[in-house]
């Protein structure tokens, strides 16, 4: 089936405004309060959506698995948020941000969505400042900027190294204000375990109360998913340990298409892997690449102390390969380059899977005080984890780690999935970043979706529906409850020998090895075999202690892993089918002579959206052709 993204007609720059006027219905203020909207996930996208929808007068039920919405993992984002303000007078514009994002995504995103995102970027900064967010400023009192990968202008706004935290708290506070107004109800410690469709439309969810174990039914007029990405399919990633693809997979099982699941982003600057029981890889913000220089020894197995390696024996491989972008090459390119030199045996540190990020030059240029001001909290984090002090060592060891996932549930221009009444925001959807996301664009997209897109587009759906049409006593909720109870019983009854934790590591290992930074027909076929074996073992040898009617973290882990295993298969199949390289999806069969990703626009300039066909069945692929009216498809070059 060919999917229709419902991109409005007209010139690119006018589509959104015309669409708001001509394409979207309005609901009058007195009627808005008759509608109830469920928002699942309270990160940047979910919290900003909940706040904005409630400000308009809708009633919102917001759900998160964490105790409080403020703990959603958007809080971990460090570096910054892009906007086309051109405050630096360096030639930035909405068009340039749009172009950089399309190019950075390796021409696999929808033009109209990206243009809208770039347009909205400025309003986000305005709103966040109005909320009192303490963005870093210059001495004159105006906002400071820094640069990020994939751009030659400085358009990133930041709050020290805690931009995600500050933006999330801003959205959280806006949402808490609506709690006080009585228009948002927050349901913390609830995990969405099913999406409930009534007559084919999303009308509610079933949530497990993680304290009591009870399955609770919630009905609404529409459902918004803002549940983040799926990096934890790799086990170790920069995501929170609880981040999971469960909610998206429950929607997938109910018919929502999963788009481009093979598009994952491996972040180049993370603290390297150290041991089996490690629970996460910690990101060191990409902003460090503004002042850090990446290198490895020129010789293999050079075990000298880095201080004893003279300049002439160092290979600053990003500067060498990409002279114009240098250390600020986009994430996919920088990550692959690091893997390449480590695979050659030139890696450093105890595992030999790490490269140096060197600040000696920056310390000499800027002094310790400025370095502390810019990166102090990151250096402190590095010290806590590795016991090494960057202020004395002048460098850190880094290696790529799974970080962000560009794929997600398929949505049209209105951010509505193929299921009526189901909207998907932020990292959970697929729409804006193509095959690779540029730094400081995730915060931008999450907040654009929540503050400035969903408030308009959801009305178009709601206007066509009767408010309060269903309540939680509908038989579909009962059916869903029976199904989930049965599934929980099954998980608890296996009583085998392995914990979910151990199986998660097994799944993660094969995904990282075979569906990670470099993929081939062989590795992907291997992954499919391994995933099947993990699934087999999961359902026959899993051990979950305790019961379902109480707080049971092992059951939560098992539940999430079951979803992750099913997802891993869709991801590997998508990677296998996409017989080209683009952005973060690198098929080793398809590379240029210099080892760069080689796209095949003639055959793969489309979105692949997968439809669930039942357990044990191969999902069916649908496509949405990507039409580029504005930009010419070129080979990405950052040289």
């Amino acid at each position, binding site marked *: 089936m060919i999917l229709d993204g419902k991109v409005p007609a007209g010139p690119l720059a006018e589509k959104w405004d015309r669409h708001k006027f001509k394409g979207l219905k309005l609901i009058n203020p007195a009627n808005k309060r008759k509608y109830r909207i469920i928002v699942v996930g309270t990160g940047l996208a979910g919290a900003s959506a909940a*706040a904005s929808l409630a*400000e308009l007068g809708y009633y919102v039920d917001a759900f998160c698995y*964490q*105790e*409080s919405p*403020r*703990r*959603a993992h958007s*809080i*971990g984002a460090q570096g910054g948020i892009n906007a086309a303000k051109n*405050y630096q007078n360096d030639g930035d514009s909405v068009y340039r941000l749009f172009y950089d994002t399309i190019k950075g995504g390796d021409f696999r995103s929808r033009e109209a969505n990206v243009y809208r995102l770039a347009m909205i970027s400025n*309003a986000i900064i*305005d*709103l*966040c*400042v*109005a*909320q*009192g*967010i*303490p*963005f*870093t*400023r*210059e*001495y004159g*009192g*105006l*906002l400071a900027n820094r640069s990020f990968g994939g751009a030659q202008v400085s358009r990133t706004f930041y709050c020290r190294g*805690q931009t995600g935290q*500050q933006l999330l708290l801003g959205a*959280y*506070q*806006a949402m*808490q*204000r609506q*709690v*006080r107004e009585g228009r948002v109800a*927050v349901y913390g410690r609830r995990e969405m375990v099913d999406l409930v469709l009534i007559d084919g439309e999303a009308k509610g969810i079933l949530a497990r109360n993680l*304290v009591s174990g009870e399955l609770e039914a919630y009905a609404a007029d529409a459902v918004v998913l803002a549940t983040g990405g799926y990096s934890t399919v790799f086990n170790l990633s920069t995501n*929170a*340990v609880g981040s999971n693809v469960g909610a998206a997979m429950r929607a997938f099982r109910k018919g929502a298409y999963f788009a481009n699941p093979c598009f994952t982003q491996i972040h180049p600057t993370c603290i390297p892997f*150290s*041991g089996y*029981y*490690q*629970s*996460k890889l910690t*990101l060191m913000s990409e902003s460090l690449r503004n002042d850090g220089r990446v290198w490895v020894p020129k010789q293999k197995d050079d075990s000298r102390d880095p201080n004893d390696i003279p300049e002439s024996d160092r290979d600053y491989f990003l500067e060498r390969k990409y002279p114009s972008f240098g250390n600020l090459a986009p994430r996919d390119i920088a990550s692959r380059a690091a893997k390449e030199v480590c695979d050659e045996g030139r890696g450093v540190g105890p595992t030999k899977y790490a490269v140096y990020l060197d600040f000696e030059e920056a310390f000499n240029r800027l002094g310790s005080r400025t370095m502390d001001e810019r990166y102090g909290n990151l250096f402190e*984090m590095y010290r*806590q984890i590795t*016991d090494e002090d960057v202020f004395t060592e002048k460098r850190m060891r880094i290696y790529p780690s799974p970080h962000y996932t560009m794929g997600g549930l398929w949505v049209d221009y209105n951010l509505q999935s193929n299921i009526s009444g189901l909207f998907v925001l932020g990292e959970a959807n697929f729409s804006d970043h193509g095959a690779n996301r540029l730094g400081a664009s995730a915060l931008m997209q999450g907040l654009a979706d929540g503050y*400035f897109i969903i*408030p308009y587009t959801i009305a178009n759906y709601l206007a066509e529906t009767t408010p309060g049409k269903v309540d939680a006593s509908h038989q579909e909720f009962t059916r869903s409850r029976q199904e989930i109870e049965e599934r929980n019983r099954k998980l608890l009854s296996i009583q085998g020998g392995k914990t979910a*934790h151990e199986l998660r590591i097994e799944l993660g290992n094969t995904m990282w090895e075979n569906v990670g930074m470099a993929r081939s027909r062989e590795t992907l076929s291997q992954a499919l075999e391994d995933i099947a074996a993990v699934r087999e073992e999961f359902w026959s040898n899993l*051990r979950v*202690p*305790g019961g379902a009617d109480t*707080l049971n973290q*092992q059951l939560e882990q098992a539940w999430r892993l079951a979803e992750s295993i099913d997802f891993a298969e869709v991801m590997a199949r998508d990677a296998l089918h996409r017989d080209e390289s683009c952005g973060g999806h690198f098929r080793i069969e398809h590379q240029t002579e210099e080892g760069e990703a080689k796209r095949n626009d003639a055959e793969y300039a489309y979105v692949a959206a997968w439809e669930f066909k039942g357990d044990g069945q191969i999902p069916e692929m649908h496509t949405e052709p990507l039409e580029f009216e504005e930009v010419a498809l070129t080979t990405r070059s950052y040289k």
Partner: protein
Amino acid sequence: MEFTLRVWRQAGPTAQGRLETYRATDIDSDMSILEMLDKVNLDLIKEGIEPIAFESDCREGICGMCGLAIDGVPHGKEKGTTTCELRMRHFTDGQTITIEPFRAGCFPVIKDLIVDRTVMDRIIQAGGYVSVRSGSQPDANTIPVAKKDQEESMDAAECIGCGACAAACPNGSLMLFVGSKVSHLVKMPQGQLEAARRVKNMTRVMRQEGSGNCSNHYECQAVCPKEIDVKFIARLNREFLKALPKEADEG
């Protein structure tokens, strides 16, 4: 490394709790204390013992979800770290480690090491925000903010809402948490219009929820993983006094 752990086990909010002793074996010094507990839990499951319930999410010191009192100190004795950032290299091989939940009147225990800290959400609801609506924002550079004020605002805004301050305070006081939010917002021009109402409402809810008052022990600052300064409690007091003569609902 190997450790003897004394861990607080409590089946539910009203159940009687007690310290149980477990062995932690085969521990690497690079592991965090939570990774050690992950490993202990795997071993417990295999022995047929119910694993220890504890909370965490980001495991990089920013979400504020982990919160254990280690040898009586919220987040442990290492300065400026959350529990999830605390590495085993800071302990001596073979030592006994006592692990308890955060204890404060306003943080009831849910199970084992998990406590309910939603009181902090309720305090924010009372006024921890600027009343601005999506859509009504002026250009971001309309109002310059002195760098010094913005920096001080950010010093306060770094609070991760973990509640260690209240757990360390002999009065179970949340005043460092509340002071941080009040100071963050009042240091920015955007937050000044509502300053009086905010401080009155937030402190009212804080008192209603059972948080004590500050009596200058400075324990909160000592355990704060973000090393937030007690001067923000002083600012809270000052803002509170400034707000007193104003009408309750005055902006």
